[in-house]
């Protein structure tokens, strides 16, 4: 079990300098190739926990082990971790989109020809070609989010951390991106997705942590997202499809429209 774990955190506590307690005594683990989500209401500490788990911030209390070791050089982790921060504006700080895409791979010492191959693949998914020469500030919010995602994926990470990654994407792009992320996951990339919107979670995660400063619940997606009571108690709106299914008295609560339709058809 230990060898398989990429991240193992215990008793994580973080308080901001203004006294705001963001995360208290939280635990977390991530295994190779896993898809994990951290859900919770606004201000529940999700983004802070994600930054701690991705080694961008250090917890004030608690311990965190990466690849079974407590002291891993940040440089080593950066080669393996890709991070999409909540605000794409923070991620795009170069003169052009192309320079932003090159930034990560250049920092980790990737060869140019390898980067060019990855870029071709990313271009197919994120439709980057028309944006490459543009300065990031000229992009729409959706375009910025696409570019920010491509920037994080350009290093071919072993673990991808996503902080509210789909908020500005249109439906078609969201579907395409989710499919691509799941393809990368099938090839071995682990994913940690943070979101306060539950509808996307069944498509990007198998295991969920419900966070409200502390880890309130942890389990398989279907266990947590079908638990109306615990979600409501922690300021989350249960999925409409799960609510309807519960009202119809279904035993196995579907989490997506497709599952719901299939359940109705099989009745």
């Amino acid at each position: 079990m230990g060898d398989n774990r990429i991240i193992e955190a215990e008793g994580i506590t973080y308080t901001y300098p203004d006294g705001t307690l963001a995360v208290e005594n939280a635990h977390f683990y991530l295994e190779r190739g896993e898809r994990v989500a951290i859900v919770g209401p606004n201000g529940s500490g999700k983004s802070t926990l994600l930054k701690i788990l991705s080694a961008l911030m250090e917890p004030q209390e608690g311990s965190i082990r990466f690849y079974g070791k407590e002291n891993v050089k940040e440089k080593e982790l950066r080669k393996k971790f890709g991070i999409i921060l909540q605000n794409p504006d923070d991620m795009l700080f170069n003169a052009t989109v192309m320079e932003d895409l090159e930034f990560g791979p250049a920092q980790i010492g990737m060869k140019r020809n390898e980067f060019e191959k990855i870029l071709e693949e990313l271009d197919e998914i994120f439709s980057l070609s028309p944006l490459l020469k543009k300065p990031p500030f000229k992009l729409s919010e959706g375009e910025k989010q696409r570019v920010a995602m491509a920037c994080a994926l350009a290093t071919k990470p072993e673990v991808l951390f996503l902080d509210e990654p789909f908020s500005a994407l249109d439906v078609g792009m969201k579907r395409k991106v989710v499919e691509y992320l799941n393809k990368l996951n099938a090839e071995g990339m682990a994913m940690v997705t943070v979101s306060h919107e539950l509808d996307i979670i069944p498509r990007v995660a198998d295991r969920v942590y419900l966070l409200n400063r502390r880890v309130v619940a942890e389990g398989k997606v279907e266990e947590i997202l079908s638990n109306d009571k615990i979600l409501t108690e922690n300021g989350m709106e249960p999925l409409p499809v799960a609510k309807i299914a519960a009202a119809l008295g279904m035993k196995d609560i579907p989490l997506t429209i497709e599952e719901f339709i299939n359940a109705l058809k099989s009745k």
Partner: protein
Amino acid sequence: MIDIDKTAGDITKAIRNFMAAEEFSYINGYMQGIAAEIKIVASVVLIFLAISSSSFVFPLLLLLFSITLALASRISLATYISRFYIIPLFSVIVVLPLAFINGDTGMYGLLINAEGAKYVALFTVRVMAAVATVSLLLFTTRFSAILSALRRMKFPMTLITIMAMVYRYLFTFLTQLVNMLLGRRSRMVERRKSIKGASAFAGNFLSRILSKSDAVYLAMRARGFDGSVKTFDRKFEWSSAGIIYTTMVIAMVFLWAITEL
């Protein structure tokens, strides 16, 4: 009274125009096909020659040379000139008094010093030629290519990192300013001009910039930044365009020698 919207708007527009110039470096034009090292060295040489000219001939030739190359690089004349006309204008204002100190020749009721007036004109032409040369370099070379070339040319790493950071934080500065101006305008019925309002805006802006710079630093670290900015190495290659350009620059050096020595 200070019109903060207009002032901040003008700053934003100027920076945006400056940043937008980077787009030209991706166009398939003449200067874009030349290695950054050649352009940097040539620009330094040409600027040095321009500022050390004692006659109008070389700076005017250099100006013409730069404009021709800009056109060959598919940069329109209006775009190119709009980038650098303002600096020579400032330089005129700085040296203009020299044209009137100890004036002896009367013109429209003003006493003009002929030598001083000549110097003002020469100084302005020199500045114009130098700025045109730098603008051509910046228009046709990606910033990352300039950094990469400076690194290969063994410039101090600290200097290169500072340049890279300043350039990056300009974007943060710009985005914040645009967002704040939009937010302000969306809740204003009429423009107010007050020092109090301006100072509150500036204070708020600075504190936002500070927190934003933390966020950008975090994003840079997230993508592997460890204190020194690395860029993809662009191999130095002599292209035919580079050889022709170098020949033209050498010819310019000879022209300078003929006119000055």
